[in-house]
């Protein structure tokens, strides 16, 4: 049964992927290009060489974490889309921790900075969880609006209160300094965020699939009334999943700061949070599948440059493909269960 479910998911996802690629092929053919060449460049740009793969995995790392921000609360029946804001808050919290903890030995300071980032993101999305539980505020709208608030707050902070006036080109916060940057995984060009992302996904999967807590979350997500009847602490579960999800996205922001930028600025707002929503849905909220889908999406993003350079396609071409993929997957969701019934399973 379990195997059949996996096969069904894989078959439907693959069909949706092929459908999206087909439509995308039509789109590029309209521009006078050979779709096969474009597919080849998609593969080459995302996975064709070690150089491409490094870029793909680097792109995938933050998306894994922001995907958890949607995937985790989704198991409790919440639709949270606040990954972008939580990432930004996490990044700012990391910088604030970094400039205050500079005196500590780097490993300890970096650990505390990441913790601060996770805490910041967790509290940020936790607000939406609390509003949901105690005030009945729609968590989707709340987290969407919190994204805008987070970005506005960061823009305000980096334009004044925590601005590094040495950076003239664009407003940026104080830098945490080279000493607190964690760099890349040895012998690769991939930063440590990938390890954080994979570990977080695996831990979440174990938590959700193999613990009583995970089962309780699923019950709340499946039927709140039933959960209430059996005496599950619904408020605690709603809060915990939103805080943990936000913490994952906050950690993504922390890693962007300690591994990539070294400071907070509008460079944090590049859509990782929104890409995470897409990944969570494509992975059907399964944390292990999130890893694979994030790598796939990272590959598409990474190949975007090659599509521009080889074919003169606009920058938005990969966004078109991602959008098509999303629509195809949502449409394909209606297919679940049909084949199993007809095959007498």
């Amino acid at each position, binding site marked *: 049964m379990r195997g059949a479910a996996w096969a069904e998911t894989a078959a439907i996802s693959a069909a949706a992927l092929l459908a999206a690629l087909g439509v995308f092929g039509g789109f590029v053919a309209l521009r006078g290009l050979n779709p096969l060449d474009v597919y080849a460049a998609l593969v*080459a*740009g995302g996975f064709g*060489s070690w*150089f*491409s793969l490094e*870029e793909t995995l680097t792109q995938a790392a933050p998306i894994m974490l922001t995907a958890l921000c949607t995937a985790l609360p989704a198991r409790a029946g919440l639709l949270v889309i606040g990954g972008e804001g939580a990432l930004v808050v996490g990044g700012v919290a990391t910088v604030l921790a970094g400039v205050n903890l500079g005196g500590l030995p780097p490993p300890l300071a970096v650990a505390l900075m990441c913790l601060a980032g996770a805490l910041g993101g967790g509290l940020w999305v936790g607000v939406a969880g609390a509003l949901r539980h105690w005030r009945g505020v729609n968590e989707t709208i709340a987290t969407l609006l919190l994204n805008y608030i987070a970005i506005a707050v960061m823009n305000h902070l980096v334009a004044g209160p925590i601005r590094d006036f040495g950076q*003239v*080109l*664009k407003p940026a916060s104080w830098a945490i300094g080279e000493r607190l940057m964690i760099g890349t995984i040895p012998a690769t060009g991939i930063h440590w965020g990938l390890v954080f992302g994979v570990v977080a996904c695996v831990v979440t999967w174990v938590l959700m699939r193999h613990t009583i807590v995970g089962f309780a979350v699923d019950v709340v997500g499946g039927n709140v009334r039933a959960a209430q009847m059996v005496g599950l602490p619904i408020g605690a579960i709603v809060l915990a999943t939103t805080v943990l999800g936000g913490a994952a996205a906050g950690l993504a922001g922390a890693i962007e700061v300690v591994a*990539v*930028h070294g400071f907070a600025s509008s*460079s944090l707002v*590049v859509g990782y949070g929104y890409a995470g929503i897409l990944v969570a849905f494509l992975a059907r909220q399964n944390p292990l599948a999130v890893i694979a889908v994030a790598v796939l999406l990272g590959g598409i993003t990474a190949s975007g*440059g*090659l599509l*521009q*350079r*080889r074919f*003169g396609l*606009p*920058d938005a071409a990969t966004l078109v493909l991602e959008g098509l993929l999303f629509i195809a997957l949502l449409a394909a969701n209606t297919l679940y269960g049909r084949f199993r019934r007809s095959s007498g399973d």
Partner: protein
Amino acid sequence: MIEASLTRRQLLAGSLAAALTPTLARAAARPVTVGFIYVGPKNDYGWNQSHAVAAKKVAQLEGVKIIEQENVPETVEAEKVMEAMIRQDTAKVVFATSFGYWPSVLKVAPKYPDVLFTHIGALWKDGNPKNTIGYRGYMEEPHYLCGVAAGSMTKTGKIGFIGSKPVYFIFNNANGFVLGARAVNPAITCQVVITGDWNNPVREAEVTNSLIDQGVDVIVANVDSAKVVIENAERRGIYSCGYHTDVSELAPKGFLTGAEWNWAAGTRFVKAWQDGTSYPNLLRGGFKQDMVALSPFGRAVTPELRTKILAMKQGFVDDSLKLYKGPLKDNEGNVILKEGEVIANDDNKFKLAVNFLVEGAVGKTGLKK
């Protein structure tokens, strides 16, 4: 015998050389892939478009194939794109066309000594990699000519300049615009507003409206894309001057002329790479060095005025017209140049240190002095 064979050999060598020389001279230029990286969309009616226009000209060089990537942020992403162009597309010349790409250029260039990197900030200093180049035009010169057009066309005697960042080249451009207008009529004043952002269309639209409400009737905007400002000016029936690239189509009625870069000056670096010849690491220039240009005149500009402005342009070319000359005061009353003092148009030391607005400019630099 020996003598004879030598002669024969020499003869052979001589005839071979004679046969080869013209062939070498006619040989196709060394093929090269040239990468262009833009910070925004390349059809933005502004900064990025001015580079895309130059890219088209570079593409016309013999043996040159160009590749382009737009919307590349000024982060670690810029380094990745440069490396991808070099490793995936075998680019040998990379045009990094945004100011903030310079740190990325400095990081990537030492890894690829056979690749030439050009950057538009003219920030190159001794000690920077030899395979990096900085080049930039003196945009204050075409702004001076725009100022002459503005000064001749204004009815209210009030003109406006919208700037992005409080940096030396924006002040130079503002000063050029003001000096040009006041060369026509010393009573003209120019409102100078610095938005603080390279690209902030909402703020730019607000400032435009506010300036027009104050009676300004000619406007120029030194922002990434002046599209919003120029369209707004056209809608409200005032004159405008362009910036970066030819934007005359945005304002068929009110467009006067515009200050344009001539980034195609960078073709010389591509040729230098192809021929293996030397190149300057730092290059600045104005009309004289063909590194800036003036947009075609709009239909509002009379033939007499066109002739006058083109004559002044020639003045920059033959160095008879100087932008900064005494007596000159800043707009806080401080003496900048005394009677008889003249600054050469290519005096980089003076121009890079400009942190003032000249008399006639209404507004503050926002700098603490």
